[in-house]
């Protein structure tokens, strides 16, 4: 392979190829077997966006000021469920400086769903996306529901006007528990959805006779679990600016993750205008994590701008953001699994009760993806999945990093350990035995896995955590490895595995394009649509573009997030940007390279095939002293005084019905204080099947960040909702507790690089995945340490202590 790569730095990944796994701990990426063969790919190059972000120079939506711009603020409901009897806006309208006050009477009478990502669904699937809300609500369905909005000359006036709006409510009985909501006689939240059933989804790959398979199994295990409504907690609170231009078009600036699909939703579902009438500009995104796969305040800004004829900026406070329209969806799940004595899975069943909250948003797609990922990682002849989605008077949920996978894995991976225990098998061996591999169906079954480095991930991760020495085994008394065997402090190790799609081909429109423009000085403008939301995509795509053309990294500038300029793309989500858009970029880069070589061949009087490009210079392979600069060719192509002039450009595309799944294993070592119930994570190891790390530093930070978010999800982060009023009680960072640097354990990242034939330079996705294995591996470590299982997230000391008190104690146990 090395030979072939040397001869052809362009390296066609489609020709396949493997390399031995390389690993990165700290410091990152030193032992890469392929290093030196590429000039940009595989290098820990600095991301182009970070300096501006670190110094405060980056311009976010909130920084944007347009001439004549008004401030918009939203009045939210104090009640979880209430009829609006009347709204008196006269006092607010009379306030000097107020330009408009709007209520549900002023909004377009088109119902829509907040999920703009859903626009990528095929039409038959889109049917299931409940169109259940207006821009401002005609009835309050959760504490925080949008009732009215104001545009005024400044924030102070706008907020004063909000205080002057008089709303007469008639409170209705509310329901906050999804199981309660399904019971007959429960308050009905949406007229169109009797029984509060927002939807039922059957897993498309259910097969076989479940009852029979379970009855025939040697053992059946069952585990129930429930995740928390983890908050995306992007640093930048939601904001949008809208302006109707003199030519009648609309410009929207917002941190949305899917500019093109947001444009489509706004045009077709809300305003009833043409998509071409809207220009959507993505501002610097201060974190997305899935929250911006939905509309935030954009529709309000658009409407206020329309009514006032002025640009309007709408923003929210952190408290409003916490009490609003985006968090992980709470899912209550049951997994049943049948196994043979020998440790072969015979059947897996998953049942999900998904709490959408007040509006549908992502609760359907997230349930479907949960089943795909959860039921798709292990081999099983019989599979059964079903999700019921319920409306409640809780805040609306949405998609969040992992999109169903961290929800399902918490339950599945504990069930897997339970099954391994029944069979008396090491859970690591059990996973190796039952996990799918190359050549088998992916989580979306029509697709076949073209690569899978899961086994390597498991083996390397196990080695790094010290699995052989530290895992106690099913029979042994626990805590033996702790500082005081059987005493107060008990140690344990646990593991978890997952698969995740790189992109959404097969189940969502998977279509991206990229434009490359080679300018006269040999620099490149790369126009792509995905937003840089901290994931490092601008850097990774620049590396792919530079590598593909033989240019230098710093020659590439990325233009992004302006739908008037960029070609269609479904947005930044589904761990797809490097993989899918990277392919589009590479396609364009190869075309530019070919054009450059063709022109260079004329100058150097040889054939394009005899040439290569590196570092911005074309050279004759047989005689590298013969060169011509790419800049010279680019300039010559533009300043052509004959008739052969051409600004060298290319359009590349990626379209796929596959999604190149990536795999990962996570291992936790913990110490439990059995008197306080505090779980201290000593170390977390994550080994990821990345195919090829385009930028190993970025991939490693991505997995570190995922581990951070996963640890918060596992241990502390909890959106607590008052069970009587429906109010979010943890509506600020003072009460919604995310970890700080002080709380972080050692996190070790291992990158396993076995290139996939379909990815750019063999790369697969990673974006969402770092979060997924953390909670289940801690949960399994908790069992290894103390023989207890926790059924809901986060795994707080209070729950651990309660579980310890309920658990039968092992004989040597002398803790509190």
């Amino acid at each position, binding site marked *: 392979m090395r030979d072939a790569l040397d001869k052809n730095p362009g390296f066609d990944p489609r020709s396949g190829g493997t390399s031995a796994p390389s690993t990165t701990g700290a410091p990152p990426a030193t032992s890469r077997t392929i290093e030196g063969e590429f000039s940009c790919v595989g290098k820990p190059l600095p991301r182009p966006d970070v300096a501006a972000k670190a110094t405060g120079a980056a311009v976010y939506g909130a920084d944007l000021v347009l001439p004549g711009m008004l401030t918009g603020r939203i009045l939210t409901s104090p009640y979880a469920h209430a009829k609006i009897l009347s709204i008196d806006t006269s006092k607010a309208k009379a306030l000097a400086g107020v330009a408009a006050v709007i209520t549900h009477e002023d909004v377009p009478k088109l119902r829509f769903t907040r999920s703009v990502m859903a626009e990528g669904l095929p039409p038959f699937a889109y049917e299931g996306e409940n169109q259940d809300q207006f821009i401002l609500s005609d009835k309050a369905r959760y504490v925080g529901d949008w009732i009215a909005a104001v545009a005024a000359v400044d924030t102070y006036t706008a907020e004063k006007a909000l205080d002057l709006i008089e709303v007469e409510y008639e409170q209705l009985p509310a329901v906050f528990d999804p199981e309660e909501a399904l019971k007959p006689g429960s308050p009905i939240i949406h007229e169109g959805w009797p029984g509060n059933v927002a939807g039922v989804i059957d897993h498309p790959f259910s097969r076989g006779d479940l009852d029979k398979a379970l009855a025939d199994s040697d053992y059946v295990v069952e585990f129930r679990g429930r995740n928390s409504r983890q908050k995306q907690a992007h640093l930048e609170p939601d904001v949008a600016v809208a302006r109707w231009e003199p030519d009648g078009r609309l410009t929207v600036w917002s941190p949305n993750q899917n500019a093109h699909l947001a444009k489509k939703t706004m045009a077709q579902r809300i305003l009833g205008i043409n998509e071409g009438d809207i220009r959507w500009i993505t501002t610097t995104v201060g974190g997305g994590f899935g929250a911006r796969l939905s509309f935030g305040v954009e529709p309000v800004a658009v409407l206020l701008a329309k009514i006032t004829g002025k640009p309007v900026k709408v*923003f929210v406070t952190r408290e409003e953001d916490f009490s609003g329209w985006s968090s992980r969806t709470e899912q209550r799940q049951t997994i049943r699994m049948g196994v043979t004595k020998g440790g072969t899975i015979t059947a897996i069943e998953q049942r999900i009760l998904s709490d959408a909250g007040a509006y549908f948003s992502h609760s359907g797609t997230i349930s479907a993806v949960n089943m795909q990922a959860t039921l798709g990682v292990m081999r099983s002849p019989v599979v059964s999945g079903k999700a019921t989605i319920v409306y409640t008077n809780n805040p609306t949920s949405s998609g969040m990093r992992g999109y169903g996978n961290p929800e399902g894995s918490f339950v599945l991976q504990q069930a897997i350990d339970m099954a391994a225990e029944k069979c008396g098998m090491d859970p690591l061996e059990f996973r190796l035995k039952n996990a799918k591999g190359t050549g088998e169906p992916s989580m979306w079954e029509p697709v076949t896995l073209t690569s899978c480095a899961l086994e390597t991930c498991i083996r390397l991760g196990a080695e790094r955590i010290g699995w052989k020495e530290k895992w106690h085994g099913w029979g042994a008394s626990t805590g033996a490895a702790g500082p005081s065997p059987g005493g*107060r*402090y008990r140690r344990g190790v646990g593991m978890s595995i997952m698969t995740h799609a790189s992109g959404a081909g097969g189940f969502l429109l998977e279509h991206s394009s990229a434009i490359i423009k080679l300018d006269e000085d040999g620099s490149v403008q790369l126009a792509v649509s995905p937003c840089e939301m901290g994931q490092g995509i601008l850097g990774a795509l620049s590396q792919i573009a530079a590598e593909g053309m033989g240019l230098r990294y710093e020659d590439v500038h990325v233009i992004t997030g302006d739908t008037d300029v960029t070609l269609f793309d479904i947005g930044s989500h589904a761990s797809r940007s490097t993989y899918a858009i990277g392919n589009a970029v590479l396609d364009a880069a190869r075309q530019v390279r070919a054009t450059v070589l063709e022109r260079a061949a004329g100058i150097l009087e040889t054939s394009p095939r005899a040439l290569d490009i590196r570092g911005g210079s074309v050279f004759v392979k047989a005689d590298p002293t013969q060169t011509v600069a790419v800049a010279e060719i680019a300039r010559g192509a533009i300043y052509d005084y004959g008739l052969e002039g051409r600004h060298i450009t290319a359009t590349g595309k990626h379209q796929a019905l596959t999604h190149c799944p990536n795999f990962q294993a996570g291992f936790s070592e913990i110490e439990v204080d059995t008197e*306080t119930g505090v779980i201290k994570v000593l170390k977390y190891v994550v080994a990821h099947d990345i195919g090829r790390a385009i930028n190993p530093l970025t991939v490693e930070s991505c997995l570190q960040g995922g581990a951070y978010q996963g640890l918060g999800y596992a241990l502390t982060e909890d959106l607590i909702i008052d069970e009587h009023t429906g109010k979010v009680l943890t509506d600020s960072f003072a009460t919604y507790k995310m970890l700080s640097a002080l709380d972080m354990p050692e996190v070790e990242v291992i990158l396993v690089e076995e290139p996939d034939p379909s990815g750019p330079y063999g790369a697969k996705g990673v974006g969402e995945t770092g979060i997924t294995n953390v909670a289940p591996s801690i949960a399994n470590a908790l069992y290894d340490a103390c023989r207890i299982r926790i059924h809901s997230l986060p795994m*707080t000391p*209070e729950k651990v*202590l309660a579980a310890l008190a309920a658990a039968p104690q092992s004989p040597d146990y002398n803790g*509190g």
Partner: protein
Amino acid sequence: MHRVLLPFEFAEPTTVRGALALIDGEKTRALAGGVDLVLRMRLRQVLPEKVVSLQKLPHLDYVRADDLGLAFGALASLRQLEASRAVREGWPLLAEAIGSIGSVQVKVQGTGVGNLCVGTPASDVAPALYALGARVRLTGLADEREIPIEEFFLDVGKTAVRPHELVTEIVVPRPPAGSGAAFMKLAKTSEDIAKVNVAVMVSVGDGAYADVSIALGSVAPTPLRAVEAESLLRMAPVGEAAGVGNPAGAAAANRVSPALEATGNPVSPGLEAAAQAAAQAAVPISDVRSTASYRKEMVRVLVKDALARATARALAGRSDVQAPGGVS
């Protein structure tokens, strides 16, 4: 919900008398670091018509120690107190308590006095000052008074500060020779407010506890002394009570991680009984941070651990707290 503050009058007097002349009743608020006040104003929990900043008052940021004791002024920041060598060496309990506050930004901006004046029972500073027997100096235009800190906290959010007064100084007596102390807390994260915190100070002489003070935070409307528990231990023989025959006890005296400390240091019935009595004194509530029952149980565990640690420190004869990161 609002992002902007409502308008208010703002004054920045340069003398204490000038400040006192402006502090005139319920509609006025003093501003020290503003960490708590400004947030509450935005949330519209307090709506002062006038805010009197203390920040321009000269010489109020002192931290002074002499043979008699420690005194700090109304503008001494938490960070100053934590970093002070005098505090670390002479009142390590206070340094340890402030050291448990994870957010450096809050400690740089927030004052020790402001922390107390918020009146929250979850303060980390208060239990340490309770255990140390601190006094609060309150100054009005006409008079000045000094009260024990236990009389300062009245209820959640309520202190003994009268409408025309300012807290000008906190005075802390020097701990007796042969004493050891420990602060422990449980919180969701290292930047969170305590679910439970405890501060204990013991002094040991002739193999027995000469004096014991145990203060609890976050488990009642005010911080509180576990008087019953204290009297159980007073005069009790130390070795027996603390189980300090075990060498691990002394070695662990200054270890930061509680995880490794109490390990292998079986706690004697004496400490356990005191810890249980302390738990009895707690009347916690359930809220977003924890449950009442967990808190009560944790009072027992923390008091037991803190007593063991304080005793070990008293016996080891050294208990200075290391300087926080970035401070030498």
